[in-house]
C-alpha cells in the first residue's frame, strides 16, 4: 500500500498542498480528482520523489520512501513527452532498461505491450510519425514496460478517443487486477465514475473527500429517494416532513423518511419503482469543492 500522510508544500508564499493524506491500496484503481491548480500534479511529483515536500511523508509498504526504498514507479506525466526522433520500440525498451530491466525482458515486455495497445505495426516508426492518440498509447507503454510496483498516471485518458480509452482501460485494469496500486488523476468524472474503486478529491491543496466510491456515494446520498407510481405523484408533498425536489407526473424525487412515503404510496395504489437516489461523482465533486 502507498500511504501519503500530512504532505504540505509551498512555492514561495503560495501554499499548494496543505496536509494531504490518503492511501492507494493494492489491486485498486484510485481516482484522484480536483480542479485545475488544485495540487494534483504537485502531489504526484512528491509521491514520485521528483519534488520534495516541506512536511509529511510518503510510505510504501509501511516504510518511508527514500531514494533507496522507492518502489519502481510507472509514471505518466501530465505533459506528455518522449523522444520525438526515437523509434517507438527502441524508446520503450530503452526506458525499461533505465529502470533496471535486463535487455531481453525489456524487449519481450515492449513487444507484448505494443501488441496489447495495438501498436505492433508502428514499432519501427519514429514517435513523431505517429498520430497524437497513438503517441499517447506509447506513453502508456512507457509507464508500464518495466512492470512497475505502483502506477502513477496524470490524466491518462485526456486526448484519447473512446476506442483508445477502452484499450487503455483494459491494460490498466489488468495491472490493477494483478495487485498493483494505481493512482490516476482525471477531470473526466464519467470515466472516473466507471473505472475507479477509490476516490480522493482534492480542492485548493486539501483533501476534501476520500474513500471507496460506494462509501462516498452512500455518505453523500442523504435521504433522497425517487418514486414512480401509476398516477400523479403530487400527493407526496402532503406526507409530513417530506420535501419534493422534482415532480414529473407519476415520478417524484423527494427527501423524507422513506418508509412513511412508501406506506402512503402503497395505500394509494401501485408502486412501480422506489429507489434511493445515489449522487453521481459529479454531484459529490460539486458539493465538496
Amino acid at each position, binding site marked *: 500500500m502507498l500511504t501519503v500522510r500530512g504532505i504540505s508544500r509551498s*512555492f514561495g508564499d503560495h501554499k499548494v498542498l496543505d496536509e494531504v493524506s490518503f492511501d492507494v491500496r493494492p489491486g485498486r484503481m484510485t481516482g484522484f480528482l480536483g480542479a485545475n491548480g488544485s495540487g494534483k500534479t504537485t502531489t504526484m511529483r512528491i509521491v514520485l520523489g521528483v519534488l520534495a515536500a516541506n512536511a509529511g511523508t510518503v510510505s510504501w509498504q509501511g516504510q518511508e520512501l527514500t531514494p533507496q526504498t522507492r518502489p519502481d*514507479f510507472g509514471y505518466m506525466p501530465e505533459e506528455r513527452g518522449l*523522444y520525438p526522433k526515437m523509434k517507438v520500440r527502441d524508446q520503450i525498451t530503452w526506458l525499461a532498461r533505465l529502470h533496471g530491466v535486463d535487455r531481453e525482458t525489456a524487449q519481450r515486455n515492449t513487444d507484448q505491450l505494443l501488441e496489447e495497445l495495438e501498436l505492433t505495426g508502428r514499432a519501427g516508426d519514429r514517435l513523431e510519425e505517429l498520430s497524437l492518440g497513438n503517441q499517447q498509447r506509447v506513453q502508456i507503454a512507457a509507464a508500464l514496460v518495466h512492470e512497475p510496483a505502483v502506477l502513477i498516471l496524470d490524466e491518462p485518458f485526456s486526448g484519447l478517443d473512446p476506442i483508445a480509452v477502452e484499450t487503455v482501460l483494459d491494460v490498466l485494469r489488468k495491472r490493477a487486477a494483478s495487485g498493483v496500486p494505481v493512482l490516476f488523476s482525471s477531470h473526466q468524472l464519467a470515466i472516473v465514475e466507471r473505472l475507479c474503486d477509490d476516490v480522493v478529491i482534492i480542492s485548493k491543496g486539501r483533501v476534501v473527500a476520500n474513500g471507496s466510491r460506494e462509501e462516498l456515494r452512500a455518505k453523500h446520498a442523504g435521504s433522497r429517494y425517487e418514486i414512480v407510481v401509476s398516477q400523479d405523484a403530487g400527493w407526496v408533498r402532503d406526507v409530513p416532513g417530506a420535501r419534493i425536489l422534482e415532480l414529473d407526473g407519476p415520478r417524484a424525487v423527494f427527501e423524507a423518511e422513506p418508509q412513511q412515503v412508501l406506506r402512503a404510496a402503497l395505500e394509494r395504489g401501485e408502486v412501480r419503482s422506489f429507489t434511493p437516489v445515489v449522487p453521481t461523482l459529479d454531484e459529490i465533486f460539486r458539493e465538496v469543492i
Partner: protein
Amino acid sequence: MARASFSQATWLVAEREMKTLVTTKGFWIGFAFTIVGLFALTVLPTVFGGDDPKVAAVGSAVQVVQGKELDVREVGTVQEAADLVRADDVEAAIVPDGAGIKVLALNDAPGDVVSQLVQAPPVELLDASAVNSGQRFVTVLVFGLVFLMFGMGGAAIAQSTVTEKQTRIVEILVSTVPVRALLAGKILGHTILTLGQVVVLALAAPIALRVAGLGELLGVVAPALGWFIPFLMLGFVLISSMWAVAGALVSRQEDLGSTMGLVMIAVMGPYFGVQFFFENPVVLKWMSFVPFTAGVAMPVRLFAEQAKPWEALLSLGILAVTVVTILLVASRLYTNSLLQTGARVKLSKAWAPAE
C-alpha cells in the same frame, strides 16, 4: 525489481546520446569537414606552392640557370624574354648583362628566383629550434581548429538537454534515475564520441603529413599531439558540463541562444587567444596555465619546445581540478533547473537550494 545502478543508468544515457548523434547527418558532415579541412591545411600549400618558378633565359644566361630549381624556357632575344614577362607567362627573365646576368621582372623583385641565383652565406642559429615559425603557425591553427570544432560540437549536449525539457520526457527520466546520472551519461557519451573522432584524426594526421611531404615534421608533432589529446579531452569535459547547464536553463530550443553565449566565449576564446598571441611567449605561457586556454596553448608551447613536461603536468593538474569543480557546480545548476519550465532560469535561482 532490481533498479539500474548509477553506472548502468549513466551508461544507458551515454549509449543513447551516442546512438542519437551518430544517426544524424550533421554529425558525419561535421566530421568529414574536419578531416577534409585537416588534409587541406597540410596538403594544399605544397600543391599550390610546390612548382618551381617559371623563368625565361637568353643566351649565356642559360648556363647560369641550369641545375637550379627553376622551370627554364630558352628564348632567342632579350625582347622575346621581356614580352613573356609582360604577358605573365613567366615570373622573370634571366638575360646576359655585360659579363654577368640580370633579372627582368614585372613590378616586384622575384625573391624566389633571385635566391636560386645567389650564393647564400651559411647561417648558424644560436637558439636552434626544431621547428620554424611557419610550422608552428600550422600547428597552432590545427590545434586551435580541432579544439574549436569539438568545443562547438559539445553544443549537441545543450540541444539534447533542451529536447528533453521541451518534450517533458525529463519528468520520466528524473523520476527514474538520479539527475547526476543523466548529466554524467550525457558528458560521457559525447566525450567518447569526441575521443573516437580525435583518434581517427590522430591516425589521419600522419597520413596527411606524409602526403604533404612533411614526413620529417611527424617526429616533431607526435609528442605535442600526445599531449594535445589529454588536454583536449579534459577541456572537452569542462566545456560539456557548461553546455549541459546552458541547455538546462531554458525550456525551448528557440531560447537556447540566450544561454549559449558564455560557453561560446569559453570555446572561441582559446582559439583566438592563441592565434593572436602565439608569437608572444609571456602571454602564451600564462594562457597555457589558464584552464580554458591551456588546451591549445600548452600543446603549442610543447611543440615549440618552450615548455617543460612538468609544466604540462602542472597545467593538466590545474585543468583536472577545474573540471571537477565545474562539474560539481554544473551538477547543482543542472539539477535545480531541469524541472523548471517556462521562462529562462536565472543562474542565481538555479544555484539556490531547492525550496
